[in-house]
């Protein structure tokens, strides 16, 4: 089985697996990370999002062999060196922007990506930036508030 060296959350991690294994399964099953979630495996819901070279991307259909030396950041890698929460993580806690929280990983990663590209998004831009992410508990209005408040503090 082929070996891959992936750059994940600032470390190089070696994984031996089939070339077609999607990144999501590598992160959860081999590297035992909990952040990215399996939601659809079809790139339709956003629960599995990670940052690939700074941009929020679904990981459920992305084969490990396609990643090369891309820099991957998961929910677990958002805190700073001192363990302080990223402003988006803080804002989600502050706004209590969750019910079951299963979609929260994707929501946070998409929000971080959005604010990286546009530090002061308006309401319309927030909605467009979050368009791929589904939440069945329907905490969307709290998530929008959290993104606005994170934009102010970061």
């Amino acid at each position, binding site marked *: *089985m082929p070996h891959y060296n992936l750059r994940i959350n600032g470390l190089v991690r070696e994984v031996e*697996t*089939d070339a*077609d*294994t*999607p990144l999501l*399964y590598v992160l*959860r*099953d*081999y590297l*035992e*990370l*909990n*952040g990215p*979630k*399996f*939601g*659809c*495996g*079809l790139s*339709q*819901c956003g*629960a599995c999002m990670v940052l690939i070279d700074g941009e929020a991307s679904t990981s459920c259909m992305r084969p490990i062999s396609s990643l090369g030396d891309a820099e991957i950041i*998961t*929910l*677990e890698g*958002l*805190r700073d060196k001192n363990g302080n*929460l990223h402003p988006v*993580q803080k804002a*989600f*806690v502050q706004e*209590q*922007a*969750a*019910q*079951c*929280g*299963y*979609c*929260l*990983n994707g929501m*946070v990663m998409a929000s971080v990506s959005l604010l990286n590209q546009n530090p002061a998004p308006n309401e319309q831009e*927030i*909605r*467009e930036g*979050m*368009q*791929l*992410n*589904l*939440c*069945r*508990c*329907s*905490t*969307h*209005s*709290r998530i*929008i508030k959290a993104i606005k408040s994170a934009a102010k503090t970061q």
Partner: protein
Amino acid sequence: MELPKTTRRKFLRNIGFISVGFPLLSSCFEEQEKAMAKRIDYNGDLPGSMRNASLVNAWLQVLEDGRVLIFSGKVELGQGIRMAICQVAAEELDLDLDQVEVHLAETGVTPDEGYTAGSGSVPNSAMSVRYAAATARKKLLELASSQLNAPIEKLSFSQGNVGYQNQNLNFAEILGGTQIEMEVSKPVPIKDSSSYQYVGKAIHRKDIPKMVIGEEIYVQDLRFPGMVHARVLRPASYQSFLTSIDLDGLSAEVSGVLKTVVKGNFVGVITEREYQAVKAERYLKNHSEWTSETAFPEEENLYNHLKSIAESPETIQDKGDVSKAFAENKTYQAEYTKPYFQHGAIGPACGIAMFDGDILHIWSHSQGIYPMRSAIAAILKMDQSKIHVTGIPGAGCFGHNSADDAAADAAILAIEYPGKHVRVQWSRTDEHTWEPYGTAMIMKMVASMDNQGKITAWKSDVWTDTHSMRPNRDPATLLNTRYLEDPIPLTQRGYLGGGHRNADPYYAFPKMQVNAHFFNGPLRVSSLRSLGSYGNIFAIESFMDELAGKANKNPFEFRIIHLNDERAIAVIQKLQQLCDSAKVNTGEGIGMAFSRYKNNTAYAAVAAHVKVDPAAGMLQLKKLWAVGDVGQIINLDGITNQFEGGMIQAASWTLKEQVNFKGDQITSEDWMSYPIFRFDEIPEVEVVMIDHPELPAEGGGEVSMPPTGAAIANAVYQACGIRVYDLPIRIEKISN
């Protein structure tokens, strides 16, 4: 691995709580004040959950460090019940919130509270904890009084310490290694609401900080040493049979295959790694043949079909002679339809099981671990005392979805592959096509009005399938049972009463009749959030709006003149005030609706502001308001979150959702073919809660959903003059 022992002392050690010891604070004036918080005697009914668990220590135990461990048989579904229970316990025992741990749903450990459903967790579980904690407080004071040799009224009682002068005992020291095994009996001295520190406040949940850093929360996150992965290949359709399967080439094609299990029409595969299981299932799907079954009815003809297969109606309510009133007054009628809806959990079902040769351990996000255990015991023909189920959260389920089926998949495979934790994860397509939906319904309303615009008689006829096929001791309630060798067919009809829930309008009509026409429909169905209430209130409140128009009355006023319940009137009046400030442009409209959930619990009035442009094919939901009254509020932010989420989810049902099927296939198989709200469609939401600390606390998880559908339909009418009777309200139905 052993089952947790039921002896309590042993259990406390087994669960591994580390004794950290709390600093013994000397009493001060402030604590004396807390100790003297006013208490009142509760003499009302004890919650149903206490029938099987009447002793204090079934609900509450003191840990070795003096903190308190609460047991609840309910599960956390994202509704925040863990926090609500924590608040109630901390309140009665004058503890800090972090001095209370809450242990949820584990067989042999927590009380059997049936299902976590029906907005019942606060009135049942949280209130049981309240009465147990209040009883414990009384007992702790009595014991401390004798140990400290001081009268009870001179004792301080705060943060887990009971003190007199310069002496202090924590709860564990008072109990000296025992637990409070006394019965909870009335009167229970509960804290008066005027002294509350936590109850009614918007207190942050403890689990969200863990979620944002990716801690282990969900059953999907559990990992055990040597755990293996499995998938179950579902039949080609509901009733198709496996005619052939080629297992030979599997191992050459897919690495890591450990075992395949074929039992009748149940096909499972176990692999070392998770993605190997995904590939193995795909291989098996491509290398198996199944019979095709009789087709579903034509979707275009669904409602006629459902009427044609319905049994003779049952008269649920019959007050006065409605026929006479209809003959004597001007009479109106309308018929409404609601399609099948999906629960649509964002995380497909997952179950883990491990058979150690004696005990079968199961980890599941089921809503009812005890009833599920009895169903799985019946499938496996095992003694249920040999099955140990631990409830672990999954993604929000909104009723009975596939959680139990995944646990049963894992249980069946674990028996075949003993000694290893077997983890079964459902695919998105299986979740969409095999879960038990919320049933399609038809609601026909007839009403007569007098010359003053007062309704004189009302008749509701409801066509509905069952609204609960939850697992119970009948194994056929679990999907797998129907596909094993010697399948057990589903013969029972579950809880039919959910179908006519809220079909009898809450208004004070002099004459009323409700008839339920039950059918056994083509699609698998069970409980979906609010059961029949959503469809029934959609019909009743759409019709009330139409009647208000006929009577030339304001829709708020029209409802108020038919109500004689002040709490109902209060939520409607408050809603009217909120809506008054909204600016309504051309092509826009505001509609409202009201319901009291189950006609005897919490109240919600909801308004919707929509913009409709039929020429441009545009229907936009701009805003939703809700005013709620759930009696005593436990957590203000928790209930607000539930109301907000309920409204947005119901709006998604109302405007978008419908399970499609063709031939023998469910064609709503993913989020493209079964779209739900995305961010560009989310309305602004505003929720106002009216608190009644003097009244019983009702649950609020389902309460805002029923009126939301009708409020949107009524707003669409206000905006463009077109009434849509057939859900979902898609723009095509207005444009044409």
